[in-house]
């Protein structure tokens, strides 16, 4: 046991602590709950994993922060930098590409005011190109805050992104 214990470091909200404590009972080893816990932190604590969040999670799991950072940085769904309020993920893999993903991406850039990988000046959107999201038979697609919009046209993009605050 390293000397910085989980009481001194852990400043996760009590609701998340309770949730993670229950989550850990699903597994014979607590650490297995780490990735699901990082998902929940990202959802609840501002859409990204700040160094403070990673440190708090490390405290809860009694891991070194660098270990938690190493895990978080491996997985593309975890954001380690602040991002816009809404996340637009445009698939650009083969099945979507064959059915016009490039046009969807171009329109999504216009409608969101982002360049791929960037955040709009008003902080409303972050736009990312993503690899296959498993909507190949209803390509092309984009996901807005994780919700799939499939079989879309460039015109649809404006409607979908225009509808959010």
């Amino acid at each position, binding site marked *: 046991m390293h000397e910085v214990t989980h009481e001194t470091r852990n400043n996760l909200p009590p609701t998340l602590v309770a949730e993670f404590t229950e989550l850990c009972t699903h597994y*014979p080893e607590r650490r297995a709950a780490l990735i699901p816990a*990082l998902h929940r932190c990202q959802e609840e604590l501002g859409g990204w994993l700040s160094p403070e969040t990673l440190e708090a999670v490390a405290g809860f799991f009694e891991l070194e922060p660098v270990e938690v950072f190493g895990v978080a940085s491996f997985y593309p769904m975890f954001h380690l930098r602040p991002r816009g309020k809404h996340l637009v993920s445009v698939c650009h893999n*083969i099945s979507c590409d064959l059915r016009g993903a490039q046009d969807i991406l171009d329109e999504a850039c216009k409608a969101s005011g982002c360049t791929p990988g960037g955040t709009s000046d008003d902080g409303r959107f972050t736009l990312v190109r993503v690899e296959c999201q498993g909507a190949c038979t209803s390509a092309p697609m984009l996901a807005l805050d994780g919700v799939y919009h499939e079989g879309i046209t460039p015109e649809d993009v404006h409607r979908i992104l225009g509808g959010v605050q």
Partner: protein
Amino acid sequence: MTRESHPTYLLDRTRLHDSHTLDVHRKNDGYRALETILKEGHSPEQVIDLIKNSGLRGRGGAGFPTGLKWSFMPDANKDRRARYLVVNADESEPGTCKDRVLMEEDPHGLIEGILIGCYAMRIRAAYIYVRGEYRFAYDRVAAAIEEARRANLLGKNILGSTFSCEIWMHKGAGAYICGEETGLMESLEGKRGHPRPKPPFPAGFGLWGQPTTVNNVETLFNVPFILDRGAEWYQSMGTENSPGNILIAISGHVERPGVFEVPLGISAREVLEDCAGGVWKGRRLKAWIPGGSSTGFLPASEIGLAMDHESLKNARSMLGTGAMIILDETACTVRSMEILSRFYEHESCGQCSQCREGTQWLTQILHRIENGQGRMEDLDLLSSLASGMAPGKTICALADAAAIPTHSLVRHFRDELEEHVRRGCCPVPSSPGPAAAPPRSPSVEVKA
């Protein structure tokens, strides 16, 4: 044989209203196989024998015989360690989206398959590792688990028997490599998804070092039907070595893309024409991928091939996940391969240099060819690079997954590659040109 004329079972229930609910599921023979096993006291060994005799082969890509895999689990009387079933629902091979349909529309079918598998292997805990992007599928399966628990189909003393079993959901976070079974187990343990060297195999040393079996969603989904209707019924569909029906997701340049249930051994032409309505816009077929991005490009002349393990292996491809991708005459195969190569570069976990560097170099070379800066020597360089990456040179098969389509491109579409180099540009008028993301700078510049 057309889509209408062959017997189906996998997708039958998914067409019913509220097919995801326990009520509809049970009214349509759901959980009948599990009930029979528990009430009539079939032994676990009997169940494994039946699955072995049916000839069921895994639907996750490798096509390994399921009954045989189950029999690799150590004897529970001699090996008292905890043991696990892991359901690989990390469906992320480009082109593949068939497990998603099953999880979203008939989650109880998956749960019953898991319970029968656990019964057969004397397992008391199963984990369903769902790719993080599949939010709706995750919620549907999670809700079905709760329904099953309330109906005593899950948990302690299932349906009043001595069999107890728990199923837990687990969410991935967007890494393709976690679909590789040992990468998946590392990820489930809360680590980076780095595949483990094999041996040891999961049956001896899996999750937390305990005996573990990893099965694909569609594989387990087949199990209750086989228990309910028998091995002979199962073998009446498909071919001798690849029995049963399979879900084929057909995408790309077709009139009606979709997920279709067909018998193994059906010709790819029938899937393209009868199920998907043919190549779209009345265009001609240029190339097709039979079973997901890692199975490579085949020319139009081979569209008569049978969709089964042996036939596609003989064509130096694979059935893979049965995800057909269709490219019409306006597509550029070089651009498509660049997209795939970039994907494998992005998804390489970085442990093995052949894969980490190789995928970067492939992307760089393909990018310059598509961009009109290729050299004739690049064609042989692509082949030689791919040969240096696979087979059997790395911990897992991700390098193979990048090498196989590269070889197929050079083998079947050499003319198109050469034309790119000769003209100094992409010769396909409708192609948008090089793929959007420029390759990130490689650690070593590739010289021809």
